[in-house]
């Protein structure tokens, strides 16, 4: 035995290093005093190869998600550069409204980034009098988006936090077990169905209440209300998670002082869970900003600068879909507009998502 260990076991000792199973096999082989060294070596080599091959395959898979991000940024940025490089003809001061010809009654120019971001008129598709009517000020789309998101934010904040307090502070376990799946269903309904509901059901119902003169077929209000219902489960779930992680002892202390459930909820639980609640709200509004089908179907297609939720507005996402559905030829400035609007949308939601996570990480109460 000692002889075998000295003689045979040492042979491959350096190759055994990380692989305990081989050691086991080898030891048993040693006991039977039969070692097929070449077979062992090839077995080990195969396993070693397999391990490293698998690792490379997995690394490649993980790389795909990184490539997706790079792809998104590259596409949006490169096409946006195309947008800002495209030449457009602008009528000279005082010229009568006629098709614009460079050198005759107009000059060739680019859309400036500042003009794009601060311009209050958006009509990139003004085809019949294109040279006269094209304007590239994105503000109406931005205000349209945020008008709808604001309505949705108010609805989802009040309903969502109310529901979260109810579920975490008031509801008995069996009620929670019924309510939570229903909220999940609400969150799982496709947005196109919500669009149908906003346009064909809620819109007409609102017109009955407010009056046909005050509210048209399309409005920021009906889109925003439905969107608020859509993102409410998100606010509820995330806020409730934050509330539930507030320790029992804090509540018990307040109850022991004679506080009612309402006082415990508003003076102990909500302040303690505030970072989670704020973060859920930011993330939900970011969802609302990026939401497409509800605003496309129900908010309308007129890019006007307004803060009146009763009016029809065009959101950034709705504009993108609208142009993508048309026959805008690849390579014209109208085609580039959807990418520059997409880039703006991407940046806005990215900032909101980062802010939402940052709030939780930096203001979370730690209980031990």
């Amino acid at each position, binding site marked *: 035995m000692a002889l075998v260990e000295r003689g045979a076991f040492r042979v491959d000792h350096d190759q055994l290093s990380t692989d305990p199973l081989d050691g086991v096999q080898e030891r048993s082989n040693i006991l039977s005093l039969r070692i097929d060294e070449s077979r062992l070596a090839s077995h080990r080599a195969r396993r070693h190869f397999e391990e490293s091959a698998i690792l490379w395959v997995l690394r490649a898979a993980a790389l795909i998600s990184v490539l997706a991000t790079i792809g998104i940024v590259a596409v949006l940025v490169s096409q946006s550069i195309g947008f800002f490089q495209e030449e457009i003809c602008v009528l000279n001061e005082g010229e009568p409204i006629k098709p614009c010809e460079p050198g005759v009654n107009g000059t060739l120019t680019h859309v400036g980034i500042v003009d794009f971001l601060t311009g209050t008129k958006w009509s990139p598709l003004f085809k019949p009098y294109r040279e006269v009517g094209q304007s590239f000020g994105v503000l109406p789309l931005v205000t349209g988006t945020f008008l709808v998101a604001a309505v949705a934010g108010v609805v989802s904040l009040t309903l969502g936090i109310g*529901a979260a307090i109810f579920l975490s502070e008031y509801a008995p376990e069996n009620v929670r077990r019924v309510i939570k799946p229903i909220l999940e269903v609400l969150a799982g309904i496709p947005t196109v169905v919500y669009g149908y509901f906003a346009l064909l059901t809620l819109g007409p119902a609102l017109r009955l209440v407010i009056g046909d003169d005050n509210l048209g077929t399309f409005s920021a209000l009906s889109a925003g209300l439905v969107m608020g*219902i859509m993102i409410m489960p998100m606010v509820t779930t995330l806020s409730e998670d934050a509330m539930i992680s507030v320790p029992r002892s804090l509540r018990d202390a307040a109850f022991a002082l004679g506080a009612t459930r309402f006082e415990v909820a508003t003076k102990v639980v909500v302040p303690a869970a505030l970072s989670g609640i704020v973060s859920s709200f930011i993330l939900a509004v970011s969802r609302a900003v990026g939401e497409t089908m509800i605003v496309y179907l129900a908010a309308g297609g007129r890019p006007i600068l307004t803060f009146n939720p009763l009016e029809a507005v065009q959101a950034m996402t709705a504009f*993108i879909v609208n142009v993508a*559905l048309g026959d805008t030829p690849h390579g014209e400035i109208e085609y580039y507009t959807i990418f520059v609007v997409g880039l703006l949308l991407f940046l806005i939601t990215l900032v909101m998502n980062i802010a939402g996570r940052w709030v939780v990480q930096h203001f979370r109460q730690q209980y031990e």
Partner: protein
Amino acid sequence: MALRSQSSTRKTYRLARDNVFAGLFAGSVIIGVLVLAWLLIEVFIDSVGWLDWQFLSSYSSRHPDQAGVLAPIAGTFWIIILTALMTVPVGIATAVYLEEFAPNNRVTRLIQLNISNLAGVPSVVYGLLGLAIFVQYLFDGQRSLLAGALTLSLLVMPIVIIASQEAIRAVPPSYRDAAYAMGATRWQVVKMVVLPQAFPSMMSGIILAMSRAIGETAPILVVSSLVFITYVPTSPFDRFTVLPLQIVSWVSQPQDDFRHIAAAAIIILLIMLLSMNAAAIYIRAKFQRRAEY
């Protein structure tokens, strides 16, 4: 005496306020539930009398009473199968890498951060990516099934990765330790211990991600555009439509009858989603029961 009555009115007030707000908080839940009920009832009433065999077996038409959803149903199945084929292996592999193989360093944290940021990118932006890279660049302007499925794959990839990661994380470390103690290599531990254990809850997460893909409209709308399709696609390079697109095009029609077939199509879409969700819940429940032993 005066003090006591003051404190007792104060107490009555506080108790009343507690009860009123209990009602208000419960009310916010009830509003959510009622709106859901209203939506479902409305869709159901709108579709009554329109959802029949003729509707299921016909192609779209200018006449609402002759129109059907054969092409969009076929397109939806095509899309979901192609998307799953591309997303599931890559998604699981990424999750396995991040949970079992990746070193805990800056690069890994960056990949993880990147995945959670991808999950927050608006879906229509994925549509722009698909339009520029897959349609214009890869397929030379062809708006094919494959371009749509590639776009959706990227969209649901973060969801699949995150769900798979959670499933893998739920496998107790002691299982891995036991396997390592037997001399298994990393990949053997993953292949023989982690993946089989995590499989059911992974599947349920993946099915939910796919049900998200079925209902997703905006990116497909950008990639595929609204087209009038009167055939069942036979290859991944065919043009296509899916149920959500068909619903959009019918909802946008002014004539009232189209609203009814839109509702009928919504019912079919909801049934598909419901059965996928039921499958996910069933798999999860079965798994939990087994884990008790």
